[in-house]
């Protein structure tokens, strides 16, 4: 009896592992659901935000490309602008323990305060589960999910794939553009771009 249960569990696990690569995040398809813990110990479920736009921002505070958008205040500006309009903004940290960008909940909360960042929450994903679910490749790597749960944007934050803060002023911000279009009921003209930055520091 017990053995059978173990076998069932093992099979379920194997099926999950086998399915995992199929869960890539494709624009126009349902965004993969998740349940993950944030830096305040609260569980964040994608399903809790049905009816709202959700932004996912892959983050690593030590990465020069992430620094570009935080030291300049560009990311915080976007977070404030869009959360004020009812958009849910989830930063995600998939750095494994011992790698660049890994933080404890306390360290992350201190960072948020210090940088004056304004995400709805920061998900800590040291095991990389959420990162693999979305196939997040870089920091930053941005995703937008519409109120019906469909992925409507997957890609870079803007069109200047550099770590120079000086490039921000002349950049076209893809996330801003996509949110403007989507929140006014228009289709997103550029729904998939090449994300740029540091590789996400996964454990494997």
């Amino acid at each position, binding site marked *: 009896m017990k053995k059978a249960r173990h076998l069932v569990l093992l099979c379920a696990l194997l099926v999950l592992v086998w399915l995992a*690569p199929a869960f*890539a*995040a*494709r*624009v*126009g398809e349902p965004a993969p659901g998740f349940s993950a813990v944030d830096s305040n110990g609260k569980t964040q479920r994608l399903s809790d935000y049905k009816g709202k736009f959700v932004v996912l921002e892959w983050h690593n505070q*030590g*990465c*020069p490309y992430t620094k570009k958008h935080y030291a300049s205040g560009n990311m915080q500006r976007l977070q404030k602008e869009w959360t004020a309009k009812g958009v849910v903004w989830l930063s995600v940290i998939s750095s494994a323990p011992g*790698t*660049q960008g890994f933080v404890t909940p306390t360290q992350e909360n201190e960072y948020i305060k210090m940088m004056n960042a304004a995400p709805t929450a920061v998900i800590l994903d040291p095991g990389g589960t959420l*990162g*693999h679910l979305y*196939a*997040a*490749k*870089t920091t930053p790597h941005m995703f937008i999910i519409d109120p019906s749960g469909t992925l409507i944007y*997957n*890609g870079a934050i803007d069109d200047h*794939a*550099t*770590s*120079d803060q000086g490039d921000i002023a002349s950049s076209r911000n893809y996330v801003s553009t996509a949110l403007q279009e989507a929140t006014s009921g228009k289709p997103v003209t550029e*729904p*998939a*771009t*090449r994300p*740029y*930055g*540091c*590789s*996400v*520091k*996964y454990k*494997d």
Partner: protein
Amino acid sequence: MFRFPSRLVLHVFLATCVLADIALSQSSPQHAHVELIARQNSIVPGSSIALGVHFMLEPGWHIYWINSGDSGQPPSLKWQLPPGFTTGEIQWPRPERMQSNALLADYGYHDDVLLIVPVSAPQSIASNAGPSTVRFIVEAKWLICREVCLPDHAQLQMALPVASKAPGENPLAAKLFARTEALLPKPMPRSWKVSVRSRKDDFALTIAAGKRIAQAQFFPLDPEQIDNPAPQKLQTSPTGMTLVLKKSDLLVKPIAVLRGVLVLTDGEAYRIEAPVRQSLQ
């Protein structure tokens, strides 16, 4: 008695100038040594020479190809040339694939890489660095990574004498240039036929080469077309091969042309540019 202090002051002043000049012309990048070199030891008006930015990287560190893959950034070069000189594009040696896990693959270089840039001289050369000498300056920017990435930059310069007849080669540099040239992708042999079929989830790149191709690796020139980390499945045939390349999740529109570099087992690299046919399969 009075002359001694003034001479000392002069010496100190001159020493400071020399040190300042060294500080200006030498850069100390992190985890790499970077230099600007020329294949030739002089330049003739109206001729072309090859300059190269030479990266010597510390073990484990890498820089990137023109398409860096899933992360990273290719080096960039901004030239300050003497009047009338022009440069061509960077000649990128074939890259290596660097795969850190199942989700991410990058394209770049370890150890030692030379980025060759052809330079053409005008019919009449105006010296800009002393009599019959021209100076080339390049502002190089690059990203160097191991577990972490560091953006870095350096201003590199070198001077060449102007000569009236065909220049000789700098033997040490010539060796490095020749070794690098062997790594540059060549045009595809004329006898080869290449075709690409776009299927639901992948591209099938077929090459009819008139001989068996047992192993090959494709490096896409354009991002967002191929899923970089996905294994490339090769079906060999007596006349060539078909390479199955998984499409990128970011590919939302059909593409007309697949461009890239094909590297065979013997290290030969070929430039591939093939129109893409849509397939119902």
